[in-house]
């Protein structure tokens, strides 16, 4: 080895040492600050619990009332069927149509079922009978879901009746809910929560931690030191990268074991894709920190600029397909949208890289662009 090479190696070694002392210091910052710790580790647990147990869109045990004016075999069988399922709980039976309105007003009644007199007779002789379902549509989504449940129950009953009579022709619809046969909410929101938590932690934490150095005057000290500014940024990113991967592990374990979330695809692929998404978020955080001077501003921009679009436009809270086209267009620049698709494809559908290369490429290009812009901004600030 020539003298030059020895010197070069020594230089690289000392750079590594600088880098390591910086990363160590960043970890100390994180572990010292109870607010940061809470945000890092409390947030994913809170989110999963919240979404998993409180904000579920599965509907169970909705209270219903029945006004059975027929009181014959058929009507009783139908009422029994309603009681049997776990979707409905029979609150009480009414005797008078006037009571219906009152019942709805009095509280959390979701559905009323009216069976007119002579129900069975009509069915037998006229081959046609009527049932009225009244639902509380102040929450349209719930009302829709509940009336569908109710129609299905009635349809089932009808099929049972038909077994006795032979119809000339019939179409059997066989509906299969692919990937999520039990229609669990978890498959939809867990990928969303993963995107949300990684986004929040990475964007917010990086931007705030860089801006904090500016605010406290320590950034100046770092810039005067022989430590390269680029390394300052890089060593800020490393701890949050590692902590985010740890976070991801916690979320996945919780959702698989507590919420029965399926995990069909390769684990390594999910972690690799998450690594990419974390990089995207870190570069957003970097860009924010390069454009703001105070921690408060950085926090506000991170929350308003990233959290809200992620919630609204990533597709897991509100379906993108139903949005007006300008919003659909904007949603394309929300990184979480693509990551959401990726996570869903891997965890729920069990697909491999071939199915998600397009989304991966989009995230990759976004990251490179963001990094280029923030590096340029950083250089301008320095001169």
């Amino acid at each position, binding site marked *: 080895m020539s003298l030059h090479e020895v010197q070069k190696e020594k230089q690289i070694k*000392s750079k590594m*040492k*600088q880098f*390591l*002392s*910086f990363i*160590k*210091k960043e970890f*100390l*910052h994180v572990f*010292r*600050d109870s607010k940061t710790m809470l945000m890092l580790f409390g947030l994913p647990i809170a989110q999963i619990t919240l979404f998993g147990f409180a904000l579920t869109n599965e509907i169970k045990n909705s209270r219903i009332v029945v006004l059975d004016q027929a009181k014959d075999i058929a009507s009783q069988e139908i009422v029994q069927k309603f009681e049997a399922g776990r979707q409905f709980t029979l609150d009480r039976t009414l005797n008078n149509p006037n009571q219906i309105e009152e019942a709805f007003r009095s509280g959390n009644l979701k559905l009323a079922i009216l069976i007119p007199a002579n129900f069975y007779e009509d069915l037998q002789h006229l081959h046609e009978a009527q049932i009225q379902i009244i639902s509380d549509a102040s929450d349209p989504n719930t009302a829709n879901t509940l009336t569908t449940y109710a129609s299905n129950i009635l349809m089932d009953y009808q099929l049972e009746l038909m077994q006795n009579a032979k119809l000339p022709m019939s179409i059997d619809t066989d509906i299969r809910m692919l990937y999520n046969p039990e229609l669990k909410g978890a498959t939809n929101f867990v990928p969303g929560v993963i995107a949300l938590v990684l986004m929040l932690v990475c964007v917010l934490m990086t931007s705030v931690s860089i801006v904090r150095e500016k605010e*406290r*005057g*320590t950034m*100046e*000290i*770092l*810039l*005067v*030191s*022989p*430590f390269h500014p680029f390394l300052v940024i890089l060593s800020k990113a490393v701890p949050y990268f590692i902590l985010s991967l740890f976070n991801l592990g916690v979320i996945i374990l919780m959702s698989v074991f507590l919420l029965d979330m399926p995990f069909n695809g390769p684990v390594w692929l999910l972690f690799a894709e998450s690594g990419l998404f974390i990089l995207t978020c870190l570069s957003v955080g970097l860009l924010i920190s390069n454009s703001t001077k105070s921690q408060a501003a950085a926090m506000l921009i991170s929350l308003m600029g990233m959290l809200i679009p992620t919630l609204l436009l990533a597709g897991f809270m509100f379906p993108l397909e139903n949005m007006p086209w300008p919003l659909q267009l904007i949603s394309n620049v929300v990184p979480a949208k693509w990551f959401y698709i990726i996570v869903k494809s891997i965890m729920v559908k069990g697909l491999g890289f071939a199915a998600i290369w397009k989304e991966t490429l989009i995230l990759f290009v976004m990251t490179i662009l963001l990094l280029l812009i923030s590096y340029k901004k950083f250089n301008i600030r*320095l*001169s």
Partner: protein
Amino acid sequence: MKEIVIKTEKLTKQFGNFIAANEISFEVYKGEIFGFLGANGAGKTTAMRMLCGLSRPTSGNATIAGFDVYRQTEEIKKNIGYMSQKFSLYEDLNILENIRFFGGIYGLSRQEIREKSEKLIDQLGLEMEVKKLVGELPLGWKQKLAFSVAILHEPSIVFLDEPTGGVDPVTRRQFWDLIYEASDRGITIFVTTHYMDEAEYCNRVSMMVDGKIEALDTPGNLKMKYAANSMDGVFYELARGAKRKAD
């Protein structure tokens, strides 16, 4: 002949139409305590940033510890220390962690860091506070600690940007004891201050007015020249001619 460690020739920094530092020329000698005075907005910070390699001059020349401010900023950064008016250690780390971190980014070996931190803690009498977070220390101690950390890597020059702002007179005096000690060891001190009693402690003082250096001499000579009893009078005499408004 005294050894020159800072030498500037017509060093200028222009932001658009505004000339923050206008053809500054001066020399600073090894081991000297050099006071860099001026009203707010006179261009002190701009000049200092150029000397530290943080800001590229628009024109003129300067060498710091023998290195060129245009081409050898990396080398300059290795050979200077810096402490700013804002407090510059990490408040959420303890004393030892701060020393280790700054030692680490200046490339000191673990062995060196251990020896130096022991010496430093002993010198400042901080044995009992080693595990305390820096944020819990009184301001005066923080400043002394920050100065000691800034010269941990034995730089040839240390830049102090209003190091004693907000500190009581007794602690300020102690702070200056540290400065004298460093200067005795051959470290050059380049200090900005607004306290005129501190200006008296300097070997030589320069006065910046409107981006130019209006006066440069020992405190004694300056007082004689401007027929003032104290540096306060000298400062007032020079600064009242300023056209620029303080920011």
